[in-house]
């Protein structure tokens, strides 16, 4: 089966896009890379009446490095992130995550903004925005607003985006000296969404962890930082002592492929390995 019938519009600017979204309200859906939305339509899980294709809006594209942050436009394709020298240099966590996002064909079309706006709990990029303390830039009819990654992901496929709003970009603060990051995930097959994943960023000085931000994905209804675990790591030379904190931090949900207990177990194993890698 293919998608139900829909109308299609291709605005040339953010303003035009916002006007269309406002006009059609709940009937409209933004189309970015279409790698999630189109399958959902084919499965008839989604049936928007109007698709607002943002692929021609130039101001949503591009990776820019300023003095204090790296700005990633919503329309930046996964493949651009994967290959960008700026990303490799300033956001090695994102660079490390990209090969885990789907398959090359999907990475050629899928966008950074699409991944974040979709809010799949097992997606890599949302977890990276949490670990790196990024800020989302959102356009709405009343102008732009900024939302910290921490406040952006609200639940299963739910974000802080309001109806009629467009995700424009995210700004990642440039990492401070001495900070390092590490990434890891477990999936049954290449290219699958993670069964459990960890994105971590923080300071390693004189062999001790400090100011760690550890985001898990694939374990709850959204990507989440493990705050108890992060606190327990502070000043510690090794990971083991802190792992027990994950029992309280994480509330894994069973899914088709793993029980809650299995997920918690895997989260601990992975946290140990990923942060252990950072310590090495």
């Amino acid at each position, binding site marked *: 089966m293919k998608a139900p019938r829909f109308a299609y519009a291709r605005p040339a600017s953010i303003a035009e896009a916002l006007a269309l979204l406002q006009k059609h309200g709940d009937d409209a859906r933004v189309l970015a890379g279409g790698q999630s939305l189109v399958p959902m339509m084919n499965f008839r899980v989604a049936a928007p009446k109007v698709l607002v294709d943002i692929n021609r809006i130039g101001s949503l594209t591009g990776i820019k490095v300023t003095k204090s942050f790296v700005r990633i436009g919503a329309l930046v394709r996964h493949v651009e992130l994967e290959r960008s020298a700026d990303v490799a240099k300033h956001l090695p966590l994102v660079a490390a995550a990209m090969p885990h996002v789907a*398959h090359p064909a999907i990475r050629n079309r899928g966008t950074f903004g699409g991944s974040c706006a979709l809010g799949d709990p097992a997606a890599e990029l949302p977890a990276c925005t949490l670990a790196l303390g990024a800020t989302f830039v959102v356009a709405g009819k009343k102008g732009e607003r900024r939302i910290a990654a921490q406040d952006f992901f609200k639940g299963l496929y739910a974000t802080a985006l309001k109806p009629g709003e467009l995700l424009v970009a995210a700004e990642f603060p440039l990492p401070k000296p001495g900070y390092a990051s590490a990434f890891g995930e477990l999936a049954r097959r290449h290219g699958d969404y993670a069964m459990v994943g960890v994105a971590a960023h923080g300071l390693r000085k004189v062999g001790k962890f400090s100011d760690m931000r550890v985001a898990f994905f694939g374990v709850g209804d959204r990507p989440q930082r493990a705050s108890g675990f992060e606190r327990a790591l502070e000043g510690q030379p090794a990971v083991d002592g802190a792992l027990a904190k994950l029992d309280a931090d994480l509330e894994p949900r069973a899914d088709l492929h793993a029980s809650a207990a299995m997920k918690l177990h895997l989260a601990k194993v992975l946290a140990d390995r990923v942060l252990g890698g950072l310590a090495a």
Partner: protein
Amino acid sequence: MTKRFDVIGKPRRRVDGRAKVTGLTRFADDVVLPRMLHCKLLRSPHPHATIESIDVSRAQARPGVHLVLTGKDFPVTFGILPVTQDEYPLAPERVRYVGDPVAAVVARDEQTAFEALGFIEVEYRPLKTISDPEEALATPEPRIHSYGEQGNIHRLQAFEFGDVNEALAKADHVFEDVFFYQGNTHLPIEQHASVAAVDGEGKLTLWSSTQVPHYIHRALANALQIPPAHVRVIACPNGGGFGGKCDLHNHEIVVSKAAILLGRPVKICLTREEVFYMHRGRHPVLMKMRTGVTKDGKITGMHTQTLLDGGAYGGYGAASTFYTGVLQTVAYHIPRYKFDACRIFTNKPPCGPKRGHGTPQPRFGQEVQLDKIAEKLEIDPAELRLSIVAKPDSLTANWLKIGTIGLAECIRKVVASSDWKNRFRKLPEGRGVGLACGAYLCGAGLPIYWNKMPQSGVQLLIDRSGQVTVFCGATEIGQGSDDVLAAIVAEVLGVDPYDVRCVTGDTGLTPVDLGSYSSRVTVMMGNAAIQAAELLRDLIARAAAEHMETVPENVGFALGRVFRADDPGKLMSFREAIVLAEEKFGTLGSVGSYSPPRSPGRYKGAGVGPSPAYSYTACVVEAEVDRKTGWITVPKVWIAHDIGRAVNPVSARGQVEGSVYMGLGEALMEEQVFRRLPPKLSNALVHKIPSLLEYKSLTSLDMPEVFTELVEDPDPNCPFGAKEVGQGPLLPVMPAVANAVYDAIGVRIDELPITPDKVLAALEKKAKGETPRVGPESFPDVPYPEPMLVPPPWEGGDGNSVNTPRRRPLKKEALA
């Protein structure tokens, strides 16, 4: 056959390769006809219910809707085996699984048909749902079908070849194990599609993704109660079949009926979700194996018991049930053998044949058990197997005739290539190697309906243009049957295989071939093709001999030339030779046919298992197991297959690699599993993962390095000695994975798939000092009947049974 070959055995591009990779192959979904309408089926949301009423009036009134059909339009039951006519094209009164079709809409386009389904009102009265064999054994009522053995038992079979209890009593050790093999699905890339049309005379043509056009032809004519002479079934090339396109399917009957009623072509394409629900895939099988061995590892006797979860209908299930027992004996010498099998009806999508049909499950059990036996006896598992390999030109305890057997050579090859001796039990903790073997049919000895006619027919047409057209009912399902056909004809006539035109799988044009199942095509079609081609070659040789002033026996054919064998300088082109033959004999054509040799077994039930030849495979898998996550990765697989002779080594290797791919999926992740919806949502048993996003099977990126070797020991029953390669190489892969996991971390996972959670559970047991094993704990009490007693050949038997078990005798229908 001392002649060197020009085509056979040469690695070549397949004759259908170019069309496949350039997108020119016309699959069933590509068939588009003028005035064509589209059909969708309404399927039951309940696993078990009676239909109280159906109101189609609102759907019928939708704009663009041409026809709505329901159960009352189809009074006749059908089923692929003559013994199990238990299905309705659309359920009239009773639905038996989620997905059972109840109504059909035919409309101007697919979208309209789909939307109209929502306007059909069906009132159901749910019945108790039976979800698995143990529940079914404990719940004889309500009966899912009113036929069968008793309660919800569909089939019971029991055979004993020599006194097995005595054999076990005399053994030095008796091993008893219970294994479980989860069901899984075929996963062809092409979802089923069919187009039906009637011609001006009202005769029906059905284009379909089917592996068995001849069986569909018969069954469809019967289901529609029209003369078979007015039905033509065209099997389009299949985008993969693997057994999933072997039944007559509801949708094929429905679109045929609709085309007849409307006088317009009607098409249906199933969604992937529908394919998951229609299923007919691998049976979940629980099995118990008791094997007696001497202290040096010789088997004294074996008793296999199987319990199959059949799902909601019979389908090929009666045959599947036999196959969980009959081929256990063709790999190793088993002097006494007993098997009891039982198939159960449950309210789930029906199971049926999938690659290896019924044999991968017991093969898994047998090969894992042999690994345990070898360990206990402190014999290398490869040596153990080598010492018990069945003998060539021998009979098995259950009266199967083994011809050539290259199993020992296969074992030696993988032992050498994998460096087995330096790896087995010697790799570091977490890495291991496992070995297993398999054996398979090269064509089922008997057709699914009783008859004495040929099982494959080939017709050849040649004319003055030099063209060679070969007609055969065999079906190209991606396995390369057209290539085998062209190669064999080309070899005999000495022409280029790319100059041979294949017309296949069309019951209106091609001689009957029973279809692409049971790995029968190369052997049966191939033998028929040789016969037809040799007849024509003889005619041409006679005409050419006259011209070249020699005798026909002295005429050679090669590379598009016809020449004097004793003086190859005297030659003419193939085309010139045909002109001579056409002048001398008139219009040129020939036919060939093939029927397998009669099997020595004469007891009732001996019809399942015989084959003109058996293929053999050995496989070593290397596994790496992450002890903390339970993740298993397979970096390398070494596999050797006894193919007799490879017609086209490229395509043969492709089949072996494809088998490894499928086998690893079955071993590690694939499962066709169901869950109950909450009671307020009908309590239905729904498929857990009816989509390719979540039903996990390997991707190309997950494939290990595969080292394939072909063992070529030509079999005299086979065309140019060529055996099968489509199914056999799958069989050893799953047990080899399980054995490799054991070698890596010392835990036994006696059930498939071997998932990370099972690995962790077993490791936890090991850490606690418990038996480090995960698998079924017990085997239920199944009311197997008194066995039919058939003495094995070496105990003075004549192939007949010596008792008449007190139960309904098995019907004479042959099962394949």
